[in-house]
């Protein structure tokens, strides 16, 4: 690149920065919106199941039945919101959504417990299938413990057996927030890259100032570069700001090194810019650009492993996710934040991110000059 090209790019970058930062609304989008969204997502996206609203129908009302109910409440997973001695009330509570789970202890529970054995019924509202699965698991565990304890006390169960000691690494308290907040960072940065690149180019086209740039000595390559540099700088800045907020506000542990995150972020932002430029080549109006962004972003987030583990998807969709930069970046961010992963652990993700970024970039570079002329 000649010295003159460098000068042109420098002046263009200055102009772009000024244009981006001048408008109050754009400033809000750049600096305030990501922080607010991190707060909203950080609090709302939470799959921890604690204090499930539980309705108890205790038809036995004995010391034994109360002990079973206590076994439920003492874990912290269940909170009793209502009691009754009529099963119909339980149905009502579930229908109205006042309780998500019901325990029904039959008449003669204490007697049968000492005799032939008994059955406790619990009803779970399955409309939220994930919460229900977890709640069901907890409830079965509690009843099993209770049964084993009683059997051992009664001398019916010989000592011994197998004790399972579970330990969770990386996130000992199993808080879903630690997993979700780093992922929100990835989604927000992609949104920022797309929004600023695609809209910046299309706005010039709509306003007719793109034609002015065409007659200037700026080459299409130089134009792409000078549109991209300010966005990349802003995206990196946003990434740092949200990451700091995640660590300081949400107390997400950053176990790994920011030095691993930086190259990953650069590749990811490069990919985002390339997609943004590509969208700008297929959109005549800002509105079209905005819709195309949405059409790209929505599936990429769903298929990224943000809400749902990629492992649980059908094979076809697992293959599709390999071409999704968001998926690879989320794996890197989560690995670095929670596991302290380094390049050695994450090289496949880095490779995939690099391949995707450069492939889309190449495509955008080919298309961009053509659409500028047209």
């Amino acid at each position: 690149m000649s010295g003159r090209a460098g000068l042109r790019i420098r002046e263009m970058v200055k102009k772009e920065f000024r244009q981006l930062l001048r408008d109050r609304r754009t400033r809000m989008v750049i600096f305030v919106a990501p922080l607010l969204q991190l707060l909203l997502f950080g609090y709302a996206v939470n799959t921890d199941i604690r204090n499930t609203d539980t309705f108890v129908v205790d038809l036995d009302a004995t010391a034994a039945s109360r002990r079973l109910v206590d076994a439920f409440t003492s874990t912290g997973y269940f909170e009793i919101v209502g009691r009754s001695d009529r099963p119909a009330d339980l149905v009502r509570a579930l229908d109205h959504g006042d309780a998500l789970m019901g325990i029904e202890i039959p008449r003669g529970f204490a007697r049968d417990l000492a005799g032939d054995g008994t059955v406790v019924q619990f009803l779970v509202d399955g409309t939220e299938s994930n919460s229900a699965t977890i709640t069901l698991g907890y409830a079965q565990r509690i009843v099993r413990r209770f049964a084993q304890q009683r059997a051992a006390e009664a001398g019916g169960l010989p000592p011994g057996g197998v004790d399972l000691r579970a330990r969770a690494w990386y996130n000992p308290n199993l808080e879903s927030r630690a997993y979700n907040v780093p992922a929100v960072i990835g989604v927000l940065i992609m949104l920022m890259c797309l929004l600023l690149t695609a809209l910046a180019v299309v706005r010039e086209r709509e306003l007719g100032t793109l034609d002015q740039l065409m007659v200037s000595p700026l080459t299409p390559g130089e134009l792409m570069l000078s549109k991209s540099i300010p966005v990349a700088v802003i995206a990196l800045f946003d990434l740092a700001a949200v990451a700091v907020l995640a660590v300081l506000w949400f107390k997400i542990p950053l176990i790994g090194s920011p030095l691993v995150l930086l190259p990953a972020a650069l590749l990811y932002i490069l990919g985002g810019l390339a997609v943004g430029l590509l969208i700008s080549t297929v959109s005549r109006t800002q509105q079209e650009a905005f819709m195309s962004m949405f059409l790209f972003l929505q599936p990429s987030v769903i298929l990224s492993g943000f809400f749902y583990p990629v492992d649980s998807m059908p094979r076809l969709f697992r293959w599709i996710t390999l071409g999704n930069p968001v998926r690879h970046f989320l794996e890197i961010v989560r690995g670095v934040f929670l596991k302290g992963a380094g390049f050695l652990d994450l090289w496949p993700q880095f490779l995939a991110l690099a391949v995707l970024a450069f492939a889309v970039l190449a495509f955008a570079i080919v298309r961009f000059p053509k659409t500028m002329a047209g």
Partner: protein
Amino acid sequence: MNRTRLFAIARKEFLQIRRDARSLYLAFVLPIVLVVLFGYAINFDIRNIRMAVLDQSQSAASRELIESFESSGYFTVVARLARAGEADHVLGEGRAKLVLAIPPTFAADLGSGREAEVQLLLDGSDANTATIAQNYADAIVSGYSTRGILRGRTVTLPVQAEPRVWYNETLESRNMIVPGLVAVIMSIIAAMLTALTIAREWERGTMEQLAATPVHRLEVVIGKLLPYVGIGLFDVAIATVLGLVMFGVPLRGDVLLLAVMTLLFLVGALGLGMFISAAMRSQVLATQVAMIATFLPALLLSGFIFSIASMPWALQVLSRVVAARYYVSVTKGIFLKGVGLDVLALDGVAMVIFAVVGLGLAIRVFHKEIA
């Protein structure tokens, strides 16, 4: 209100949508894409969890335990480790989500009636999967344990748990997602299409022309809303039919009640979109504001995927003013629970209020704009 003028406005709006290929795509293809993605790709049903085994016992008993993990269908053994140190690597690189460690003394302890201990190391970074995996593992080990110590004897445990799941008996996530998705799709229509309709007229300068015609503002607002209500209802129908036919989602309640509630919610959401459009006067700004006002709450605070009960207190309070929350409760109630208006009365009132407020805001702001 004059019917000819009303339909003229509706027809003009309809033609405008039809000419714009991307809007059409958004209106008709996106709902299908979303239903298919959410219905096929997304599954909260956690299966085939990748696990590694560190079997230091190498006995018939330890192999039997591993076998019961494999045969459960929840776990796939992807690695057999030789040393404890390797656990760190398989979890760190994410090759396995959990490691089952069976100590050398396992078989001897079991044989002599002492309590044998096995360790489960979980990758806790994905808390949700880890919790579910732990529950499964606990049930498997417990079953194994009881079988083992009772071998040759017939003692049953004094209490059996009999779990029953209501409304969504097989706990399929698509059953919960498809009804909720309808709310999200409609908020997308409101944010991406309706939010533009008046801002576009302002930007193109056709608003003054419209104001100069004898059209009453009520006719403009309702006429402009009509095509979008049509699109919205069409989308709901597509999503519902896809859900019922492709994914076997049950529809247990009253279809008519669902239609009425949907219409109310649609009018509210579209009215809100139009209000934002008229107030912002710029297409890009209106779209962004509408995304924040309709799409984000419908996605995050409606209970569509994320349980409201798990949210902090402040967000729970905030979700009370999110119309989508009541609508999702209506759709889940009608699709899955099969309940009627007696249970959904409160949500129904919320729908009526939302529709009146949405439409009222649109008409009011329009009046001020023209004047």
